């Protein structure tokens, strides 16, 4: 009975098989192995030694760097960059859809540039801009305008580093979510807007709220999930901006930095895996939240 039901869907399984095989081999199995490592002591050389929940217990009760810096920093960073980057990506996609057809792809290219040129973009634009001396563009402008008296150390002062990180990350938040939402907006049937005008839609904000957003929910959801994932996976930015690892007074220390620290500097892979599992749980929670906001009933 059950078998014949499965057999009746054989085409479905055939369709998903190529993806599922590669997915299982190169993503699921390695990740399950990594989760397994989180219950061990593993230094990359000796065999992993099973130590039960110790990594997790240490992580949430004694790891002061993690509790004092990584968690609050990540929380602050994510709460601004997640929703902020998402809103920026959506807003820009919407604005681009208001441009004439031939111009759109060039503006889309401009907005996507930070994602296209990743590392280079950051060091080239932002380091000279935020440089702490008088030559730094931002400092020299602010000094000329008389808004500050002494050059500010945008990337090396622990009080300012996080803000610089947030600004730069927001600038580069037009990634795959942005492309998807742009395609989604342009995909909305134009006859819907004509019908809307008859039904009394007066301005483009009403049009956006009552027509555009409801008809592109799948893309909005995709954008939200990608915003969460990329935000929590961000790590190197503080190190790149300040040029110091760890960042000054751990001001830019995020959970991902903590993973890198244990994984690639101290070679405590088991502990690094435990932090990865913790981060996964945090992302899962944030994701559930956005799902309930955007997901349709049947999902």
């Amino acid at each position: 009975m059950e078998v014949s039901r499965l057999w009746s869907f054989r085409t479905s399984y055939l369709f998903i098989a190529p993806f599922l095989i590669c997915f299982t081999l190169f993503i699921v199995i390695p990740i399950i192995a990594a989760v397994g490592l989180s219950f061990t002591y593993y230094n990359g050389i000796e065999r992993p030694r099973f130590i039960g929940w110790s990594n997790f217990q240490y992580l949430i009760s004694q790891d002061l760097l993690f509790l004092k810096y990584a968690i609050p920093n990540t929380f602050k960073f994510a709460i601004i960059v997640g929703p902020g980057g998402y809103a920026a990506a959506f807003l820009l996609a919407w604005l681009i859809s208001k441009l004439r057809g031939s111009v759109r792809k060039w503006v889309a290219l401009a907005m996507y540039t930070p994602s296209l040129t990743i590392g280079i973009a950051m060091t080239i634009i932002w380091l000279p801009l935020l440089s702490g001396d008088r030559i730094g563009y931002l400092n020299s402008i602010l000094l000329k305008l008389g808004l500050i008296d002494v050059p500010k150390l945008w990337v090396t002062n622990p009080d300012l580093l996080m803000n610089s990180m947030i600004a730069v990350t927001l600038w580069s938040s037009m990634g795959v979510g942005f492309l998807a939402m742009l395609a989604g907006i342009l995909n909305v049937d134009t006859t819907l807007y004509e019908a809307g005008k008859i039904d009394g839609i007066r301005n483009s904000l009403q049009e956006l709220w009552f027509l555009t957003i409801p008809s592109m929910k799948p893309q909005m959801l995709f954008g939200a999930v990608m915003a969460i994932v990329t935000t929590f996976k961000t790590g190197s930015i503080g190190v790149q901006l300040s040029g110091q690892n760890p960042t000054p007074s751990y001001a830019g220390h995020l959970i991902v930095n903590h993973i890198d620290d244990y994984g690639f500097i101290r070679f405590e892979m088991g502990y690094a895996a435990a932090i990865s599992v913790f981060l996964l749980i945090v992302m899962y929670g944030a994701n559930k939240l956005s799902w309930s906001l955007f997901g349709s009933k049947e999902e």
Partner: protein
Amino acid sequence: MRSSNLVARISFNTFMLALSVFMILPIIYIFNHAFKPYHELFVYPPTFFVKEPNVQNFVELFWVTANSIVPVTRYLFNSVVISGLSVLGVTIVSALCAYPLSKHPFPGKKFIFSTIILMLMFTPEIVQIPRYLVVSELGIMNTYWGHLLPILASPVAVFLLKQFIDQIPDSLIEASKIDGANEVVTFVRIVIPMCMPAIATVAILAFQNSWGNIETSTLFMQDDEMKNFPYFLSTLTNNLANNVARQGAAAVAALIMLIPNLIFFIILQSKVISTMAHSGIK
């Protein structure tokens, strides 16, 4: 009324133009940087525009590559093959998977989709070692398979395509089946054309991922002949005692890495925009 509309239009366009110019600065910089003579390369703060453009850096890169043991054309060949296959592979494999996930009520569908989303959220740092073991167990080290298979399954691509296929009305797919089309024909004739914008977006992503991918060359390829072009470029400036030498060649290398991405993006993005002009989903 008319004139206030015009003012709004002009200020909107000006705003978008100004923002675009600011955002596109990195591309302008990379183009200019490649043509800078050495004394301009190290100016601080860096200048965006080159003052005395010349092709000395291109010559330098040419000589560096001419002395390489494995001819540079081999690295380029590898990169072109891998990127081409991966764009084709990722789009086809992802679309094939996204269609049933969106439209077929098969058992296990929810579980598979949730797993895909969940795996998307695991940070990649610690996964490298187990993945290395899988690749080595499969015996695909130092083969093109070792470049291709690990990046073939893209959870982001499947998720994106599934979201777009969700928007295709079920009635359209039913109608196609009533007309006697089987699943394959329905997939090719209805599903693919209706989600072309998503397919183009996935292709952009797949190209970007594989063209700049250094990871598979570093981890899974021990033969120099099997490594790809970006890996070769990254060795130009790494491991040098001083970081002044070969900066010119590196500037050109950055440009060479960028241009295919740029062309690919522009071609496919204009496809996204033009397909949509005539086919709204009804």
